[in-house]
């Protein structure tokens, strides 16, 4: 009797780290762990899931799944879910997961719990901890019935290797094309490999103190030095000024993030911004105003002109990198 079905999300030909995170958690819960992977040419990825405790992988593979179309993916996944009949469904709350998970729950006639940061299992019931009001508070939430459909914020759980049987079953005829009313015309991705802010482990963020769009280059340089799990962010002031695209915005009307390191440059720390990044493990603030509220939240504060500090920091870090 399978305990958990996870959604293994594929982006750019690879399974997302967040999917391995939820697989690891599912393994910890005990019971059988099944996964469903959907895409075009994804069958070859299935064995990777066995390394993180997945016992059975349902593969939905076909050209009609080349692009993410919610209706198609939901149809295929719920068909697998009905076969597996799990008590818990877990997915990573990535950009795609946020779109996908509530639709899956609705199709299965159950509720969903979004964007959780911790899960506790008591008997058959999972209590999910999730930030509300962009992190100003936490709610402990439970589903009333099985399957308990839960999306977990990336980086909430460690990826742990554990042997799973990893049996692969190809699912045929998973799509009734007559029910698809959406067609993807084109997908345009920025020419960068930087992670999404909600998934990044390090975020270098800039605010009003950056003075203009051209100065974000040095934040990008700093983020690049931190490695491939780092990206840049921005405060609402910087976004509203038109310096950065909205997808960079961190805060209550942007993204809620919880990286290992958050470097706030020229950000005063409005309540809406502090809510959106308050769960970061380590916060560094660089601001020339010693009274800026951000310093009340920062583990390390540098009171000085960021235009002097950031370039010097870049040089110093380069030294460590050799």
């Amino acid at each position, binding site marked *: 009797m399978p305990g958990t079905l996870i959604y293994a999300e594929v*982006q750019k030909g690879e399974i997302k780290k967040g999917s391995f995170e939820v697989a690891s958690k599912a393994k910890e819960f005990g019971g059988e762990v099944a996964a469903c992977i959907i895409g075009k040419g994804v069958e070859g990825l299935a064995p990777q899931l066995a390394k993180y405790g997945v016992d059975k992988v349902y593969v939905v593979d076909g050209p009609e799944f080349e*692009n*993410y179309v*919610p209706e198609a993916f939901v149809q295929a996944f719920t068909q697998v879910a009905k076969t597996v009949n799990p008590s818990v469904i877990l997915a990573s709350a990535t*950009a*795609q997961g*946020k*779109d996908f*998970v*509530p*639709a899956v*729950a*609705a*199709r299965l006639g*159950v*509720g*969903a719990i979004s964007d959780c940061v911790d899960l506790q299992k008591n008997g058959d019931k999972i209590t999910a901890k999730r930030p509300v009001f962009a*992190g*100003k*508070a*936490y*709610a*402990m*939430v*439970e589903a*009333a019935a099985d399957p308990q459909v839960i999306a977990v914020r990336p980086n909430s759980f460690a990826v742990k290797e554990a042997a799973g049987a990893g049996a692969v079953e190809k699912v045929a005829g998973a799509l009734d094309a007559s029910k698809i*009313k*959406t*067609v*993807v*015309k*084109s*997908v345009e991705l*920025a020419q960068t490999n*930087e992670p999404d802010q909600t998934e990044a482990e390090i975020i270098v963020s800039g605010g009003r103190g950056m003075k203009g769009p051209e100065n974000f280059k040095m934040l990008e340089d700093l983020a690049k*030095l931190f490695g491939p799990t780092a990206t840049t962010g921005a405060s609402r002031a910087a976004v509203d000024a038109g310096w950065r*695209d*909205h*997808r960079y915005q961190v805060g*209550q*009307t942007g993204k*809620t993030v919880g990286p*290992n390191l958050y470097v706030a440059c020229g950000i005063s720390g409005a*309540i809406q911004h502090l809510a959106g990044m*308050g*769960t970061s493990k*380590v916060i*560094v603030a660089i601001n020339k105003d010693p009274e800026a509220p951000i310093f*009340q939240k920062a*583990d*390390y*504060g*540098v009171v000085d002109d960021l235009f002097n*500090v*950031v370039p*010097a920091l870049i040089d*110093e*870090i380069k030294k*460590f*990198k050799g």
Partner: protein
Amino acid sequence: MNTVVCIKQVPDTETLIKIQGAGIVQDGIKWVMNPYDEFAVEEALRQKEKMAAGAVTVVSLGPDRAIEALRTALAMGADTAVHINDGAYYEKADPAATAAALAAAIKGMQYDAVFVGKQAIDDDSGQVPAMLGELLGIPVVTMVIKLEVAADKSKATVTREVEGGQAVLEVSLPAVFSAQKGLNEPRYASLPGIMKAKKKPVDVKTAAALGVTDAPKTVIKEMSLPPARQAGQKIAGDDAAAKAKELARILHEVVKIV
């Protein structure tokens, strides 16, 4: 083009949250229309203006106070409103129950599109758009940042935000669209708009009158505040270069990130 916009009244983003049982202290909160719903209302108005025909209906589930958010939408230019005024239902409503009530109000209306904000900034669930689509039996496109409706209103070309970029989709109408920041710049209600809004019709209904008795499918057991963060250390140094050097050392030796 006939459209329906679902809106929610939420605490202003400046609000300091205080916990009471499995909810929050309501006293002293300034209630506003959910910021993402403003984009939804604006888009409905723009589509109507572009077509120079049709009506915009706003729907909200909430207690008495929710009428203020509906009046704001009417003042912006919406034509009619439905207020599902049911404090008891609203109190317990999870996203599924909210979607059920909204869908019940919308069913039977004539519409080409349903607009919603991509998420409400109180519970941050972001589930209602997808659940509405499922209950209404129509497709859903979330995180919309651009929308062009065909002249015959049979379909729309939509740009949505995806991880690391954007995707362009074609979807048949009617459909549900969830509005992301960037879709438009919401207008302010004008003074004549506010005056006119007072006379616009608001249909008030209970959930029971809509035939909705859905028990919530998820339950909040407890609420808590995040642990208070203490201000940490200020990095000392004679000048910016010295402070940067010390910060780099900390990142390397203490945080171990470099």
